[in-house]
């Protein structure tokens, strides 16, 4: 599964990662917790998760998903 990181998470984690997600990690929040053991910046609840270009408002299954993006609070304009 391809993971992409934006804003300050590029420095805290990476630009992109390709990971093999273990079977017990079934949804987006479990993925956050699993990755958060190594990358605690992802545990911040202000970091939103997008699954295949859709921003999640609730945990969603990773089944069938190919890309997960981690989005810290934005600062445009």
């Amino acid at each position, binding site marked *: 599964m391809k993971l*992409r990181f*934006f*804003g*300050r998470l*590029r*420095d805290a984690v990476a630009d992109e990662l390709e990971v093999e997600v273990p079977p017990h990690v079934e949804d987006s929040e479990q993925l956050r917790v699993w990755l958060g053991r190594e990358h605690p910046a992802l545990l911040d609840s202000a970091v939103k998760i*997008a699954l295949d*270009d859709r*921003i999640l408002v609730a945990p969603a299954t990773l089944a069938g998903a190919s890309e997960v*993006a981690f*989005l*810290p*609070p*934005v*600062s*445009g*304009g």
Partner: protein
Amino acid sequence: MIALAPDPIDPAALLADFTRGATGAGAIVSFSGIVRPDGGVRELWLDHHEFLALAAFEAIESAARERFAVANVTIVHRIGSVGPGEPIVFVAAAATHRRAAFDAVDFAMDRLKTGVPLWKRETRSDGSHWIDARAADHEDAARWTEYHG
């Protein structure tokens, strides 16, 4: 029109194009945001999620058009490296009357400060750091939540 611009933008040229396309309008309002040349900032770097940023701009554009009954809205935002004194964002709205055009631009700017996946990194002589949306930006965006035009 919605655009993410990797190269420098020219607000005067964008306004001229917008004006040509806004036939029948009685009012055109535009806003240009410029990277402030103060505080020793050498560069802003705009990170973005292309698909989600364009989708967010489209949502802002259609919300502005519906809410304020404006005919045309354009949003052009720089991505990548932007220098002090350079334009970073251009927003324009065309409407029958001026109030709607002013409100649509004001609304679009407030929304895009807090609701578009863009991230600013500022470089000064002492290094780079990522910028958070200011509390005032969220207060500005919240002004429109209870607004029903």
